[in-house]
């Protein structure tokens, strides 16, 4: 099977390791991966901040970049939700991309039909389900099932898991105090689990939480799910 990788602008510029891990993981599972270089950003930051007209060219660009691909895989629930839930309001051409876009865990579980991807990750992990993956896409138990099948991994329950971490795109900038208070509570809950890794399937949330963790110099580390799933005994995560 041949798929297009929609790496997302945040991953491209700030978290390339997530993109690399997604490529390695998919290739390990026998999937041929393309990276259409015309892709940039899905337009979610503009759209959610109220700049619909500024979003339009990015919607057009994204749709054109993935023309002709039956499966487009994106390691971000939030960008997948933007395409699937909000692109239809930009017309029929934009709407056509939604049904072909799969968030990484959806693609693995629903299209490839795997939950055990042959990963090895000998650490204690707690999982934060990001709001857009959880509520807009309805990812449900998919990420958890994938994590539970990872060899060596101990999954511990995150208290208040379904509460927002406080990132919210430009919300973190427009309402810095409330955003930081929400992030601090999320981190307190994550630390209470004794896990060494706070896993998520959306680097935007992890950018916010990881930045707070580094400021506090806690032992907990934020890591994208793709990097855990890409890790094997032969090529462990470093």
């Amino acid at each position, binding site marked *: 099977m041949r798929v297009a990788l929609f*790496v997302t*602008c945040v*991953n*491209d*510029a*700030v*978290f*390339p*390791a997530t*993109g*690399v891990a997604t*490529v390695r993981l998919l290739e390990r599972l026998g999937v041929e*991966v393309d*990276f259409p*270089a*015309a892709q*940039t*950003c899905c337009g979610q*930051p*503009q*759209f*959610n*901040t*109220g*700049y*619909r007209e*500024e979003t339009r*060219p*990015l919607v057009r*660009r994204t749709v054109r970049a993935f023309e002709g691909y039956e499966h487009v895989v994106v390691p971000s629930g939030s960008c997948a939700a933007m395409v699937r839930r909000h692109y239809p309001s930009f017309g029929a051409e934009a709407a056509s991309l939604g049904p072909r876009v799969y968030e990484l865990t959806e693609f693995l579980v629903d299209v490839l039909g795997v939950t055990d991807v042959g990963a090895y990750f000998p650490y204690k992990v707690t999982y934060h389900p990001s*709001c857009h993956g959880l*509520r*807009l896409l309805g990812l449900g138990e998919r990420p958890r099932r994938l994590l539970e099948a990872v060899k060596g991994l101990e999954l511990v329950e995150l208290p208040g898991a*379904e*509460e*927002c971490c*406080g*990132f*919210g*795109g*430009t*919300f*973190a*900038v*427009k*309402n*810095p*105090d*409330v*955003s*930081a*208070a*929400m*992030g601090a509570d999320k981190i307190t809950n994550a630390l209470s689990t004794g896990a060494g890794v706070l896993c998520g399937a959306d680097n935007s949330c992890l*950018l916010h939480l*990881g*930045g*707070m963790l*580094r*400021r506090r110099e806690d032992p907990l580390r934020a890591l994208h799910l793709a990097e855990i799933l890409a890790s094997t005994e032969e090529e462990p995560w470093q």
Partner: protein
Amino acid sequence: MSGTFVGMPSFPKAAHEAVGDATLRANLRHATHTIRDKRARAVAELDDWAALREAGKRIKDDTLRHLGTYLVRLEEAVTRAGGTVHWAADAAEANRIVTDLVKATGETEVVKVKSMATQEIGLNEHLEAEGIAAYETDLAELIVQLGEDRPSHILVPAIHRNRGEIRDIFREKMGSWGRPAPEGLSDTPAELAEAARLHLREKFLRAKVGISGANFMVAETGTLVVVESEGNGRMCLTLPETLISVVGIEKVVPTWRDLEVFLQTLPRSSTAERMNPYTSMWTGTTDDDGPRTFHLVLLDNGRTDALADEVGRQALRCIRCSACLNVCPVYERAGGHAYGSVYPGPIGAILTPQLRGTTSDIDASLPYASSLCGACYDVCPVAIDIPEVLVHLRERVAGEGGKGHRLEKAAMKAAGWVLDHPSALAAGERLASATRKLHPKRLPGPGARQWSDHRDLPELPAEPFRDWWKKNRT
């Protein structure tokens, strides 16, 4: 902090104070988490919840689509039953109508049933200025009124207060409003409730005029409905000689049959009860029973403007259950006062800017007072897509180009240009990665400074993904 919301600072400024108040944060956290867990259990008991939610949404939407027809039908039915209907286009007109009606009775005191509509128009303050004392009889409203405070929650207006604070307010203030608090009052719920009961009983037995709102108005019979937990409302609705009800025009439902849906979804969503303890219904006047005079003031106050907005009008479905407040992580940290309106939380963030417009600082900031996490939409018993309306209102605010938005729009446009030119984007990413050792951890400038006040900026990678791809896969 008394009285009015006029001249509120923008939401982020108002929230700054609340976030720093440890007692407030603890009070809110405790209260919202308790009620949200109970609500989830009460809702889970019904296996037809999704169908009820859809039915409630449809009834409200169908009614709003033919609002004029149902309001006229309601007016005819109320009049036929011996009541008098008044139409108020805005707060000033509603206040004037109510004041004139009270003055016509010759009374200078009224007792009030908890009502959002009368708070929205600032009726108590207006009556006070006209020499009429309005006594709130709902326990939480009484606490707010005695404390010269503002309500901070739709259903539990004193949610920001704990028991110790309430005891202090009763001890200090009850005496100046009527019967004082009993000697040695403690902070146990039973003693606090008894103190309020004694204080209020005196008011109920003396009052000649009652003022209420209504949760629903049934067009076919002209019947008004109030649902409550304490029974204070029923006292106000039945004991006085004159009853004046001020109700938003969106509260009408066509038939009694429609009530069946809301009498299931409202209590479970708001107080997590299967049925609310008191459901009072009244139709005009009845000889030798209840008020001898009944007036209904139908309030617009921005509602027809909201109705004209295709996306925004769904906010008028709201049945004021407050489930969205209890589940909102922003409300939990910022508190109700930060929203600068009697309608706080997610519903307030979409309702207030529609009712009042977006010209003031606070109203323009409200659509941004959300991380768009979507928890509010999940719990709403009439399926108001609050995140959708928030984004829609952000478009309105950004389009108006107010303070900060011109700069932001320019930045969005510039970012948009780069993002529409992948080679420029790649060059920018490459430059950022190459200079990463020089990047400071804290940055000046709008956005970056707020970000780095609380978090480290991420360390940029040695190369962006598209360069890795080029090197390794092409």
